[in-house]
């Protein structure tokens, strides 16, 4: 469990990225921090591995104040995946994945063996092991980034807009992969995005952030959709319009679901979605698949 207790971060230029934030991030669940730019979401994420230190307040991991921990040691125990992968361009894929293992003194052979296993875990062909990051596609680079984040089998995985820079089809693939991984591994994932659809897809718990790191609403996707806290939240998640303001219209094969612009979004079926892989485009109730 990660806990923020009245945490404030003021940067030297005077901007308050985060203002007395209190937030509990439960273990083995995915918590998504979602907000537009300037909402402090990345700052909040980076306070968990001390890439940013709070101006005041306390951040605890499993009850321990992290201010007392050595940053380098703390970071080696926490997975970190960022946008544009952040891989080392002069190292091969396999050595990029093993970076943290090398740092912690794992023998080269063992580290590389573990890196190959991780390539399987994230769905990367082992043939890519000896390539350099620049020889991979954006989606493949992100998979390498995720594998690197998982290398030391950390309890916590921080993901800072990891799928922000890849095209929509690849993004959707990577999101499904992350859901699969999370079902298998059950990490405490903290995921930052500005994409509310991504937040609803991946999050067990979602924190919708306003400017200055203020939480507009914290809850499950169902709670947020069914009971938005205020106009900001409704407008942000789009329940007031378009693709999320759905209504039913009777059709020949059942009830049609019509979106806010009058276009059919799908049909209403009686069976609820079962557990298992869900496909892009499938009309799917958030958080009802028993993750």
């Amino acid at each position, binding site marked *: 469990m990660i806990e923020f207790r009245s945490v404030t971060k003021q940067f030297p230029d005077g901007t308050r990225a985060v203002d007395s934030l209190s937030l509990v991030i439960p273990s083995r669940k995915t918590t998504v921090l979602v907000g537009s730019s300037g909402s402090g979401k990345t700052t909040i994420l980076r306070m968990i591995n001390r890439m940013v230190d709070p101006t005041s307040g306390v951040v605890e991991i499993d009850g321990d104040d992290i201010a007392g921990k050595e940053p380098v040691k703390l970071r*080696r125990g926490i997975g970190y995946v960022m946008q544009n992968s952040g891989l080392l*361009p*002069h190292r*091969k894929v396999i050595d990029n994945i093993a970076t943290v293992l090398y740092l912690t003194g794992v023998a080269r052979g063992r580290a590389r063996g573990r890196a190959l296993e991780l390539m399987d875990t994230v769905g990367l062909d082992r043939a890519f092991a000896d390539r350099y990051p*620049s*020889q991979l596609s954006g989606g493949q680079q992100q998979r390498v980034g995720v594998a690197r984040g998982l290398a030391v089998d950390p309890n916590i995985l921080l993901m800072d807009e990891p799928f922000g820079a890849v095209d929509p089809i690849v993004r959707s693939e990577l999101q499904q992969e992350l859901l699969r991984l999370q079902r298998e591994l059950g990490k405490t994932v903290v995921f930052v995005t500005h994409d509310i659809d991504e937040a609803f897809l991946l999050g067990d718990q979602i924190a919708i952030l306003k400017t200055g790191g203020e939480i507009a609403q914290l809850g499950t996707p169902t709670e947020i959709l069914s009971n938005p806290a205020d106009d900001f939240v409704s407008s942000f998640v789009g329940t007031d319009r378009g693709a999320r303001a759905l209504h039913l219209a009777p059709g020949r094969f059942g009830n049609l679901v019509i979106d806010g612009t009058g276009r059919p979004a799908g049909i209403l079926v009686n069976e609820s979605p079962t557990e298992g892989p869900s496909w892009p485009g499938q009309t799917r109730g958030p958080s009802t698949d028993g993750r």
Partner: protein
Amino acid sequence: MNNWLDALAWLVDPENLTGPGGVPARTVEHLGYTLLTLVIAAAIALPIGYLIGHTGRGRGLAVAVSGGFRALPTLGLVTVLALLMGLGILAPLTALVILAIPPLLAGAYAGVGAVERSTIDSARAVGMTEWQVFAQVELPLSLPLAISGLRSATLQVIATWTVAAILPVGGLGRFMLDGLPVRNYAEVLGGAIVVILLALVIDAVLAGTQRIVIPRGVKALRLASKRMHA
């Protein structure tokens, strides 16, 4: 045309190829001076340059100071220092170290500056110490530009040591400055040819080194972006 033939004749004359005043000995001397100058300049410039590159602080000051150094007329500096420090190797050595610092310094901090910020940030975020960020990320990725700096420093130092022969020091400049007063133009031209060849050979060696030290993944990156822009 006659001068050229005389110079070539001078170059192959066995008398000029042996002994402490011969071409080989003077070449070794010249290379020794050059190496000594570069080692001292590098020992000063590289730590400062990499510190500036790593911390991102003091860049403005470094640009100003090395710009000032560059503006100093080297021959004037050699003369003034010789008046202050006396004859011998120390005065020209100091002047040439000052000359060699700016390109080395600029190569180091520009090399680090050219590394993607996100690469450095993520290296730190996965748990590298500051030293590891420097040694495993910034240093290898800065090498192409750092060696460019070394190349330009080396050329300047090789060239300027010949001029330093206005003082009683060795090196290939001796041929030019000793030949001139006695109108031995064959010697002057022969010495000049040797210096030019030496500069070209050393630059070729460094150019080769530069190709070798560019990390392979970085080369692949360049090819990839070239392909994209093609």
